[in-house]
């Protein structure tokens, strides 16, 4: 896609002309992320997280391939080989901490990216496909992170593998066969560790493939923006390069500062100490919890403690998967023609005082010790979570009276379309 005023790629010298005739790859890049891609001029810092997520994926692939050169996927030696990486391999400690904290930072930026989309309704027409592919990416990244966490074969690795594959065991009739098939045995063992290694290596490349589709789908309608008003004229946009390459570069700098502060000074802060204990199939740690980025979903799983038509175990599993799968229907649940939350007073209230506290409570309960209070809190929050998407959002999208929208992106930025800085109406600077 491109707007009519997008700059065209012009090969400058003999070599680039020769390449352009044979394989116009530089042209493709120029039109995708170069000066040939016009982007709304009013994007705020919440629009940095797509690039950061892409960077985090790259970081994980590079450090991951390096770690796989030294790691041995065998239950006898997996834990020892991880310690070997920490102690003996040149810069091994850095690679391992970079990969482990890289996963956390991947989820930080992905969550901010998702909630950007939720607030500005980036999932609405014509951007449904971008959103759907994004949910696929999220599921892939969660599966990858889970299998990666199993590899060091510590206590949390082992019991995480047992519990998560146990989720499939809750499916009626075929569940136990599926669980045995996933594990290659009746409990996590060598067979499970070995295949998780293989799939943990494979899935990031599948993810990278879907990311390409995600970006491709984005480039058909072009980026959304904080007003939710579509691009009307050239003065609404600026070329991606150098304007947003520079802004994304700045965001990347901030990201790297925070990331390396964690890697160098608090490398174990986000991890669980029990994963420094080798896997023991005969003893479950007293405080077993998943990694922080799974806490909200774990809280939903644990919220179901009573049988109601179906067994509690199956309810928990269904609710946990449904909490993400319902995102696939989000573009059709929110029917309001107004995209941006900025102009939706009722939506805004339920977003900031409903959904966000709900997710924070779920996150807290998922990581906290089970007690009657945390169970009750996670039950309330789980109920609200589903109510928000399935009931509240469809209702407010039909009863809400939106605030007046700006005429255009330029109007929102400058107060008038008579003062464009680019395009045909531009008056030369005196």
């Amino acid at each position, binding site marked *: 896609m491109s707007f009519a005023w997008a700059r065209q790629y012009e090969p400058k010298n003999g070599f680039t002309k020769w390449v352009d005739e044979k394989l116009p790859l530089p042209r493709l890049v120029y039109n995708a992320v170069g000066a040939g891609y016009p982007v709304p001029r009013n994007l705020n810092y919440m629009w940095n997280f797509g690039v950061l997520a892409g960077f985090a994926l790259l970081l994980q692939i590079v450090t991951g391939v390096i770690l796989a050169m030294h790691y041995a996927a065998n239950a006898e030696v997996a834990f020892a080989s991880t310690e070997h990486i920490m102690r003996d391999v040149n810069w091994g400690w850095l690679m391992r901490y970079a990969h482990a904290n890289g996963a956390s930072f991947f989820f930080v930026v992905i969550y901010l990216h998702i909630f950007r989309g939720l607030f500005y309704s980036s999932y609405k027409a014509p951007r449904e496909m971008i959103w759907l592919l994004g949910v696929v990416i999220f599921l892939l990244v969660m599966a990858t992170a889970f299998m990666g966490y199993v590899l060091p074969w510590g206590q949390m690795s082992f*019991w995480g593998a*047992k*519990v998560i*594959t*146990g*989720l499939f*065991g*809750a499916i009626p009739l075929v569940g136990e066969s599926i669980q*045995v*098939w*996933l594990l*290659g*045995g*009746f*409990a996590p*063992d060598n*067979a499970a560790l070995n*295949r998780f290694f293989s799939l943990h290596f494979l899935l990031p490349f599948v993810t990278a493939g879907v990311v390409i589709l995600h970006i491709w789908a984005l480039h058909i309608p072009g980026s959304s923006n904080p007003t939710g008003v579509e691009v009307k004229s050239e003065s609404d946009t600026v070329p991606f390069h150098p304007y947003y390459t520079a802004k994304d570069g700045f965001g990347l700098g901030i990201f790297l500062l925070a990331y390396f502060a964690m890697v160098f000074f608090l490398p174990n802060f986000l991890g669980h100490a029990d994963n420094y204990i080798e896997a023991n*199939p*005969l*003893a*479950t*740690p*007293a*405080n*077993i919890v998943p990694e922080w980025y799974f806490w909200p979903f774990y809280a939903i*799983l*644990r919220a*179901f*403690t009573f*049988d109601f038509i179906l*067994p*509690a*175990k199956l309810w*928990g599993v269904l609710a946990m998967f449904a909490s993400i799968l319902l995102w696939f229907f989000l573009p059709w649940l929110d029917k309001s023609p107004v995209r941006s939350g900025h102009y939706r007073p009722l939506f805004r209230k339920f977003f900031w005082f409903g959904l966000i506290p709900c997710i924070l409570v779920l996150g807290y309960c998922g990581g906290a010790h*089970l007690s009657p209070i945390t*169970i009750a809190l996670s039950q309330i929050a789980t109920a609200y979570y589903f109510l928000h998407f399935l009931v509240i959002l469809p209702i407010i999208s039909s009863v809400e009276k939106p605030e007046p929208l700006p005429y255009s992106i330029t109007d929102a930025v400058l107060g008038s379309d008579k003062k464009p800085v680019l395009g045909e109406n531009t008056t030369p600077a005196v």
Partner: protein
Amino acid sequence: MAELRTEPTVGTTQETDAKDGVRRRDFIDIAALSAGGVGALAVLYPLISQMAPSEDVLAESTTDVDVSAIEPGQAIKDVFRKQPLFIRRLTDAEIAEANSTPIGALRDPETLDDRTLEGHRDLLVTMGVCTHLGCVPLGVAEGENRGDYNGYFCPCHGSHYDVAGRIRKGPAPTNLLVPEYNFTSDTVIRVG
């Protein structure tokens, strides 16, 4: 053309077939696609089946345990098919407690007699695998949390089992599984 018309049977068949939208040649398409589909499934099956338990995993069969050293009130942990096995010698008070529980109050109704062998009512042999998502419940070792019903407590999602290993509270759907076992001598059981 005239020659063709002299063969009315062929002409008629083709005309009727064409009316239904199906020609005899379409059968070749259907047959070819079917053969291809069967072939694809035949390739898919080994690709999926290779992940099922291999022969060496399936070969793990039985475990023998000497239970003579377990005093009443004590429990031990062993391994059966790479999963924990709990063996508890119940005290008289615990047997009475298990027998006094009303069956109607149980999520998965079973008496202590259903869960132990004739003549060995004091020996409770169960898998140490929580029936929720498979963690090992606490309660075997001295000083571990035995839950609200004096049996086992699963730390993963808070399931409470009673003194007979029956589910009483929490998300687990069924009682701790009693594996098949029998006494091979006065003091040794064979599980599996």
